[in-house]
């Protein structure tokens, strides 16, 4: 059992929880994730470790309520427990002194860039962060980013904050105007694909954090397999970060849609059973 110590709504449909998990916190590195299961009948879902505190023995998870499990998790309060949390899983982001780096975040994906930003700063890199969302209130954790980043560029579809338009436009300008060594993008597949297409002609090394469906997250099932330069890789143990220019995004998008009917069915049943109010 893993206790939720703190819970907060950080944006529409996005919550953050701080969970008591001392061992995971001790070994967590930027880019790692956990797999959790809320209760005995629950599904195992992966969530990135958005922050961790070794001293306090806690990890922070940020999640967007888009389906049964995340909705249900959104109804938990401080003091409630999560049945299973396993981690820290996946390869950590390779941290070294690159020079000038850019982190590109779309929607909720942004927040998971936070530990990477901290790590890159520890290695004394210059880091520009570009965060994009539909509208201002979806720009999660922008204050925290501001604290650490050398430069923070915001973009919104509706112009409510920062520059009006897409992250890719801001990224392109940045590439043209500076000497970037590496780009790292996290967000919806379409956005990561678009980033990849922007950086490719410039030969800018680009990492993306892929989010395929996972089951156990320890390399045992193959559910999370992705196609990297024509080769099958397991995102949970060989990723989740891969060279963007080698990713088959279309295949990933197909595979992510595989359980859409079941996801809708589960959500409908959940909403109906408790009218959206119950916990289990």
């Amino acid at each position, binding site marked *: 059992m893993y206790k939720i110590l703190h819970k907060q709504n950080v944006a529409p449909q996005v919550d953050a929880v701080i969970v008591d998990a001392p061992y995971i916190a001790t*070994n967590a590195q930027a880019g790692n994730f956990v797999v959790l299961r809320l209760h005995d009948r629950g599904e195992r879902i992966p969530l990135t470790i958005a922050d961790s505190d070794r001293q306090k023995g806690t990890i922070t998870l940020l999640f967007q309520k888009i389906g*049964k499990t995340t909705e249900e998790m959104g109804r938990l309060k401080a003091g409630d427990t999560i049945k*299973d949390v396993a981690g820290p899983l996946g390869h950590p982001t390779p941290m070294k002194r690159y020079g000038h780096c850019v982190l590109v975040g779309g929607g909720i994906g942004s927040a998971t860039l936070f530990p990477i930003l901290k790590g890159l700063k520890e290695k004394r890199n210059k880091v520009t962060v570009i965060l994009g969302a539909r509208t201002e209130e979806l720009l999660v954790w922008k204050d925290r980013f501001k604290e650490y980043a050398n430069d923070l560029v915001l973009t919104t579809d509706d112009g409510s904050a920062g520059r009006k338009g897409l992250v890719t436009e801001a990224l392109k300008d940045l590439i043209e105007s500076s000497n970037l060594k590496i780009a790292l993008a996290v967000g919806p597949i379409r956005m990561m694909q678009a980033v990849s297409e922007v950086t490719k002609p410039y030969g800018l090394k680009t990492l993306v954090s892929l989010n395929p469906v996972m089951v156990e997250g320890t*390399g*045992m099932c*193959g*559910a999370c397999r992705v196609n990297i330069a024509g080769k099958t890789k397991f995102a949970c143990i060989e990723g989740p970060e891969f060279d963007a220019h080698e990713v088959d995004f*279309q295949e990933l998008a197909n*595979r992510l849609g595989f*359980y859409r009917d079941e996801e809708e069915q589960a959500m409908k049943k959940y909403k109906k059973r408790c009218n959206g109010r119950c916990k289990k």
Partner: protein
Amino acid sequence: MPCPTTYNKTMRVRDPKKRAKDFKEVALGLTAKQAIKEAQRCLQCKKPKCVEGCPVEIDIPRFISSIRDNNFLAGLKTIREYNLLPAICGRVCPQENQCQGACILGRKKTPISIGALERFAADYEAAINETETVEIAKPNGHKVAVIGSGPAGLTVAADLAKLGYDITIFEALHEPGGVLVYGIPEFRLPKKIIQREIEYLKSLGVKIKVNWVVGKTQTVDQLFEEGYKAAFVGVGAGSPRYMNIPGENLNNVYFASEFLTRVNLMKAEQFPKYDTPVKRAEKVAVVGAGNVAMDAARTAQRLGAKEVYIVYRRTEHEMPSRAEEVEHAEEEGIKFEFLSNPKEIIGDEKGYVKAIKCDKMVLCEPDASGRRRPDCSGEEFTLDVDQVIMAIGQTSNPILTKSIKGLKLWGAGYIEIDENGKTNKPGIFAGGDIATGAATVISAMGAGKRAARSINEYVMTLAKAPRQRKKSSKTAK
């Protein structure tokens, strides 16, 4: 060579038509009367061949004679001297290659149903709700870490706990049991049997930490720092193999481990009562012909598939699966496409499976190893299916092995051990599938037994020579 006829048919099984629709156990076991009658057939050989066939060398004639004499619990006690998990081995051992395959009676007629008798004794104890009281040595204060809770880890834990060790099992998944819980289906091995064994272990004082991915949550070095004197690595060979053919990542191509994990561990057959889904299909091709393939095929059928094919590149004579499973699968209507080697999985415009294309194979003359290799005949054929399950084997999982610096590996990342389960790193022992490659439950248990013995020796030597301990725990890092 295994001969399929050497497997026993004395056991009652459920009607194939009915059982193929649910997940309840297929084989029902022997009645007491049947068991005694079967035990009476045993010749009580002076030099029992059966014992040679059993990887842990159970004193088979002795336990059979107890059953013959209506002393079922005494029989079970004998088995337990060698084998911690009789209810499980009695069900899943490939007996036709082991004890039963070697039984002298098999030369002329039917061998003794040793597995069924073993199962009977264990089930009898469970039915009357007895538990054997074992003597546990006084706690000796030494902590030993067991990594992985499959049959190898469970055996090490039990043997060392009985010797007074302070044992903690670390398991990556949320439930202990290894392949026994996530791989082998309920209809072959009911989960309550494993739960009973786990409860028994806990009664010996064994602690179990789930959600503990050693190498990630804690490294082995960190365990040593917490005072563990030795570690046993029994993490299995849980990573699926695949063929690298076009279409393998299409939607509705499952690796058997995912398909079986969804159903066995996550109970996806009860979706949406349980949150994890699994796709049900009409026509399914399962590639491979081992136990995993049979389990996947029969599971797909129980999920409602109308037609299920086993696609295998050799013939029925080379199938590595237990004979009993093949026969049960056949009775349930699973179809077999032998001498067929998949070369491509064909998808529709949305990225879903619609067919599998195979080469027709021929078997060539036996090579130096005596195995007849399949070769393309030049012909090919296509099977229309809406789901493909790849069950062509498992290989080592690198999470733990990579996290131990300098650990000596062989082949595809398996841990090199000596005959006592020692690795090249002091204080680290290993056994089961991670040392041998995918094998059997009983061989994993045998490895656990040997490792437990040598862990005991190792820790006792350390305890006697405190100076040396410091040195070797340093090298363990």
